[in-house]
């Protein structure tokens, strides 16, 4: 059984933000019908490409159906209206100009379908200047402050970074979009009424840094132009080891004594006070520690040494690559990666969801749809 069985979601999104929102719900078992223009969603053409198919599209649209409609043509428009009449929700991620052009503004949708939950996710939310609504994910991550402060300890002469891959802002925003949508659908169950939900990707990213940035807003910490304004300080960072990298987190005396034992109590470590992390964590000590630790860890292998560290109470972990994860025993035990046959790619493993629901586990039901594979859905009703 699936958690969202019985819910019908229409998705008219064309960017990763909206498509990821739909994916999260489709993975929970909602019936998600992706409405695409003739020619298909632009995400179909984004790389990497294998055997003529976009890999990104096939990830973002797993478990969905596809219906092709040209909503500017009246016959297709009527089909869309009939779909919306029997749907629970509509997911959109276009700018407001597009909505006006396609008569899919919040007011028009609410008037025609008062029962429908209508969500639009955009870079800065409804009402932002028109040109702000057409920026790319790298601009959103920079607008939010995350880029300026990533990675930790970046010097002034190195560029702020966009984060992992191309779409961090979209994925974070997809989570809040799916969350708010499910909340509103809960209300719909009780009242039969729809709502309009306006999600700002920028504000999602700002909310994620609440307890750091809010202390600056409230005047408890001085805001600054420092690239390190969000950092915690201390020796925590990544280090190169024999077969990759490890990350060391260390803030207490217990961490330190555990680590000294793990390293076999080398002479250089004797020069530090036992409680230096709490009471003597100067930049000079951090530098000295890192120099000593760096030369020791360089000769270690990441899996055995981090397992030994954990058993000594040291929060040191491996920096895993994409290749490490499918063979990691914890990922295997939890079943995070699920194997399936794909019509174009052959046997593949999909990363699934971080939550295991005991009664309604996330399942792979169908690969991402071929363009218009489910056009018959638009004939129903």
């Amino acid at each position: 059984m699936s958690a969202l069985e019985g819910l019908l979601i229409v998705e008219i999104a064309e960017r990763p933000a909206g498509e990821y929102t739909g994916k999260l719900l489709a993975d929970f078992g909602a019936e998600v019908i992706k409405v695409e223009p003739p020619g298909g969603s632009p995400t179909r053409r984004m790389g990497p490409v294998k055997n003529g198919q976009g890999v990104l599209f096939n990830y973002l649209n797993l478990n969905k159906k596809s219906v092709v409609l040209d909503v500017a043509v009246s016959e297709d428009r009527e089909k869309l209206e009939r779909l919306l009449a029997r749907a629970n929700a509509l997911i959109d991620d276009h700018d407001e100009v597009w909505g006006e052009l396609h008569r899919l503004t919040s007011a028009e949708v609410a008037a025609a379908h008062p029962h429908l939950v209508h969500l639009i996710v955009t870079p800065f939310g409804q009402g932002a200047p028109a040109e702000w609504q057409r920026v790319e994910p790298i601009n959103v991550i920079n607008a939010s402050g995350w880029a300026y402060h990533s990675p930790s300890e970046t010097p002034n002469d190195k560029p702020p970074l966009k984060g992992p891959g191309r779409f961090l802002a979209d994925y974070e925003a997809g989570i809040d979009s799916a969350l708010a949508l499910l909340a509103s659908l809960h209300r719909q169950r009780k009242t039969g009424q729809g709502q309009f939900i306006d999600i700002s990707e920028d504000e999602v990213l700002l909310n994620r840094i609440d307890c750091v940035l809010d202390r600056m807003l409230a005047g408890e910490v001085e805001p600054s132009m420092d690239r390190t304004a969000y950092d915690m300080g201390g020796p925590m960072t990544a280090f190169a080891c024999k077969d990759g990298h490890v990350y060391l987190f260390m803030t207490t005396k217990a961490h330190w004594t555990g680590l000294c034992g793990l390293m076999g109590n080398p002479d250089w470590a004797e020069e530090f006070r036992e409680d230096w992390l709490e009471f003597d964590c100067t930049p000079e000590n951090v530098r000295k520690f890192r120099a000593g630790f760096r030369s020791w860890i360089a000769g270690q292998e990441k899996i055995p040494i981090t397992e030994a560290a954990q058993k000594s109470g040291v929060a040191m972990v491996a920096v895993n690559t994409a290749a490490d994860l499918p063979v990691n025993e914890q990922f295997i035990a939890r079943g995070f990666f699920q194997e399936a046959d794909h019509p174009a790619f052959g046997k593949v493993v999909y990363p699934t969801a971080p939550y295991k629901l005991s009664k309604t586990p996330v399942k792979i039901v169908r690969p991402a749809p071929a363009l218009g594979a489910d056009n018959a859905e638009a004939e129903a009703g």
Partner: protein
Amino acid sequence: MAGQVTSCGGPLTGVRVLEITKVWAGPYAGKMLAHLGAEVIKLESSTNLDEMRAYGGVDINSAPYFLSINQEINSVQVNMKTEEGLELVRQIVAKSDIVIDNIRPGAMERSHLGYEDLKKIKPDIIQCSIKMWGNGGPLGYQTGYAPCFAALSGLFNLVGHEGETPMGMNMRHGDSTAGALAALACLAALHHRERTGEGQFIDLSAVESLSSLVGDSLFAYSVTGQIPQADENFHPEMAPHGAYPCTGVDWISIAAPGAAEWQSLCEVLDGGNLAADPRFATLGSRIENHRALDDELGKLTRTHDAFELADRLRKAGVPAFKSMNSIDLCADEFLWGRQGFRMVSDHRNGARPVIGPSWRISPDGPDVQRGAPLLGEHNEYVYREILGLSQERFDELVARKVID
């Protein structure tokens, strides 16, 4: 206490959540649900405080970290080290829809608050447990903090400057994302319960939460066999795509998805000379020569004010935005204007600015107004109104420090 406001209204009105949480990920999950209208009750104890009530101050009722997360949360005290206290917890569970925890592996079970225990108290309870590696499994004993989740997840390895050790996002990234995903899973389970009457257990891995943010990269590895690497600001289908230096220590982010944006960018920056450079004639050649392109652009942007240039570029149709520092953010009129930053009540100062939810919902949306609770602010509401204890019984439990 009758008539006390315990929710900010909105679509989850009538849903009751009990949180046994500390630090960031768990409280953030509670906040997400509270900001959608759920009544969220946080179990606290003066002898076992959320560390966030201690960081950055001496007054547990005005600790900055705690105030910045726990808006619209209701605080109830209980001493969970006593059997009587645990019995009170069980009575609150019986009146709740969702229970969220993020305390140490095994701690809920030791207090007889594991899912099998809670199910006996309330058969349709939804319980969500957040752990670094999830519950159980061969590495479930391991613990860590947000950058550890990121390192283990595959995300950390994908962020870094070219030719350097991968460094991940800022080290503060990760807890809140795991919390948001926990809230999402709780609502999916709530829908299942509404339809079938059945509750369930949700086991959330913070590591996998961050893996899910790089899902397309992990899937691409499976399909293509190529291991994705940290790529600075490179975009395989867009150039320019990056951050470029401006005056002072400022940077501007610029992306040019197609020919029109590229032309406009060149016109704004140097009247079109760059556009004539054969190395940058087509999107394909710009991607191929992206390092040279970034160097040339950096020379041109360096003399500009980042705010002004971003504004001019956007108006010319080029996606651009200043890389915002914390002063820029705190002073941002746009964010204040649309209540991205907003004021809530505060016990000490009357009002406090907080970062508001990312959603606007209408009609009947939530209205976040109440700041974080005093320790035990909602004791009477929970014990007298929800559990229906007599005043005498309540007073006696307080006197004996069961409610403490």
